[in-house]
């Protein structure tokens, strides 16, 4: 106990030292004044002290958990709530029905502002589900996913402002354009390994934004494209309120569609090929999987959803400019996938809702939200790396063969 406090005191002193110039001193280089904010030092000291105690306690628990897992005791651990939710029909069915009801009446009971935020959250659900295929299933790290989102949004924006295309024609076109870009960009990077892939995709993301910003004739540059129509319904006139509600239901349908497709795909031939590619590329190719086609498929498929989501995003905002498509958005979608639990569909949905809605409803902490967001990302990785709801691999009930070899390898 004494030892614990002593260590926390040292940590506290270290952080006071570390944060001293940035937290305490503030200089105004124009007027040559220094402002000393000593009170901040106190906060840092107390905060670091408390956090270090909590940190050590959490680390001890984590170690205990890891040790148990190593000794193979995980079988006896009760399945987590998330898993029980999925597997036990007694819980699963009523929860699903309740959820469906809430989803249906949601836009009718809350105001337009809330519905609008929910639509945004649902757009990110679709983005998350799309990137989940590329990163979660196929294991291709994509840091420039937002580029395909931008392709979708600008497909609608440009087609509408130049040729007067409506939402319903642009929607599939946006998706196809996304997929096309996925394939085109996928080609040169087929041979690259993990981290090279990361930086090249990051580059593509930045290039997309720069091109949009500077190609005034087509994309209207930094000014963006305005007056994009909302989704229509057989030409019916709609007030903003109805249109938002309508977009909401549309989005729900699309999410269901995306869940259905990705779920079915997971157990399909190409889905298994993706997962095999993720686990071991060489073994996978040796088994006769066409690497190029499988990888391009993953890119195209992921990009397709981003394209669709982009079109809806453009129609929701009725205005798009390059600033909606920065690296931050890519990082956000990637965090949704990772925090949800790689490859887990329910996890992605929960994570998307949490990450998009939380900042919207925590406006009081608006200043601190990105700070907390960053900290949560780090903490999640350390204390719950499997994500909010871990992906459960489908197991086939068959004969259980335990060989000496498998035991030895552990």
């Amino acid at each position, binding site marked *: 106990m004494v030892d614990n406090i002593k260590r926390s005191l040292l940590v506290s002193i*270290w952080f006071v*030292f*570390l*944060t001293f*110039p*940035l*937290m305490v*001193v*503030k*200089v*105004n*280089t*124009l007027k*040559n004044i*220094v402002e000393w904010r000593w009170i*901040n030092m106190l906060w840092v000291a107390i905060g670091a002290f408390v956090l270090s105690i909590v940190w050590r306690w959490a*680390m001890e628990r*984590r170690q205990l958990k890891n040790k148990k897992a190593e000794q193979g005791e995980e079988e006896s651990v009760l399945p987590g709530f998330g898993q029980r939710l999925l597997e036990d029909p007694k819980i699963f069915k009523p929860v699903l029905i309740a959820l469906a009801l809430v989803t249906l009446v949601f836009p009718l009971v809350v105001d337009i502002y809330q519905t609008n935020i929910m639509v945004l959250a649902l757009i990110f659900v679709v983005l998350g589900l799309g990137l989940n295929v590329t*990163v979660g299933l196929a294991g291709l*790290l994509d840091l420039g996913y937002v580029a395909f989102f931008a392709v979708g949004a600008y497909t609608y924006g440009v087609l509408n402002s130049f040729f007067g295309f409506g939402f319903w024609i642009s929607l599939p076109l946006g998706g196809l354009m996304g997929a096309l870009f996925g394939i085109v960009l996928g080609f*040169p990077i087929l*041979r*690259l*390994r*993990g*981290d*090279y892939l*990361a*930086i090249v995709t*990051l*580059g*593509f993301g*930045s*290039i997309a934004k*720069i*091109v949009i*910003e*500077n190609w005034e004739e087509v994309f209207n540059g930094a000014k963006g494209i305005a007056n994009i129509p909302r989704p229509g319904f057989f030409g019916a006139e709609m007030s903003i309120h109805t249109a938002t509600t309508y977009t909401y239901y549309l989005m729900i349908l699309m999410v269901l569609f995306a869940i259905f497709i990705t779920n079915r795909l997971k157990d399909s031939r190409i889905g298994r090929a993706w997962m095999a590619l993720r686990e071991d590329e*060489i*073994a996978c190719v040796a088994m006769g999987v066409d690497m190029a086609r499988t990888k391009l498929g993953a890119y195209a498929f992921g990009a397709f959803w981003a394209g669709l989501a982009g079109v809806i995003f453009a129609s929701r905002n009725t205005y798009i400019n390059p600033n909606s498509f920065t*690296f931050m958005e890519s*990082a956000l979608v*990637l*965090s949704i996938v*990772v925090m949800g639990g*790689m490859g887990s569909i329910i996890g992605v949905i929960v994570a998307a809702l949490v990450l998009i809605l939380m900042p919207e409803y925590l406006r009081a902490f608006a*200043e*601190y939200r*990105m*700070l907390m*967001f*960053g*900290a*949560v*990302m*780090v903490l*999640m*990785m*350390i204390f719950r*790396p499997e994500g909010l709801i871990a992906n459960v691999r489908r197991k086939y009930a068959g004969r259980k063969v335990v060989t000496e070899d498998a035991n030895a390898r552990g």
Partner: protein
Amino acid sequence: MEYFLELSSSGLVRGSIYALIALGYTMVYGIIQLINFAHGEIYMIGAFVALIVSGVLTIYGFSGVSILILAGLIAVIYAAAYGYTLEKIAYRPLRNAPRLSPLISAIGMSLFLQNYVLLAQTPDFLRFPALIPDFEFMEPIAHIMGSPELVILVTSAVSRVGLTVLIKYTRIGKAMRATQQDMTMARLVGVNVDNVISMTFIIGSVLAAIGGVLVGSYIGQINFYIGFMAGVKAFTAAVLGGIGNIPGAVLGALVLGLTEAYAAGYISSAYEDVFAFGVLVLILILRPSGLLGKAVKQKV
């Protein structure tokens, strides 16, 4: 011709800065195969600390070169402390985790540090004092290369030589090379791998902070966001040269800096980033492991 020389000089200056940051990326990557996304933030923090220290010193009546040296020194110490703490909090617990986990943790750390500086200081651009003195002997060619440029080139080169000496001829350098080749084996022969990794972060952070101070003084303003783009560019440079390879990082950085300068000068400054990434993609298509990287044969 003069225009060409001007562009070359500005390209080399950029390249030298990228090299200082890229070295940190490539060293960390070489040892623990982690893209330290928060490395650009260390560079930014280095620049901020230097700005704050020089501001305080100016008010207390110091002047000229003494400010540059003191501010630089303190910035370097702080950057090293931040790098060390960063590794300990965000990466060490994830040593044996799947590859993506430390990367996400790094992105989180990068966001955290950016917003920490934003909240603790200011979201606005701050004016950075011109600390680098003007040398008289540079007057005749000042339109091609002025004193700040010269100082940047020389400092960067000296730092690089220092790093090479450190890695080639010292005990810790030997331990670093051993850890890079085979971490388990290094541990078996008595290398304290944890210390080596901490040391790598510290050295990388020191180099980044030197870059931060030089850039701040050269460009004349900084804000909390400068680390992101610089980090991405430096990482691009490291990949270009073959990540994990120290001379490769320097070469990649110079190629990248020159490409950007020529693209900005001859074509359009709006598209310089496009060319930077274009060169990266092109080189990676032709040489998938970078300019100087060895093609690693995968064994099954």
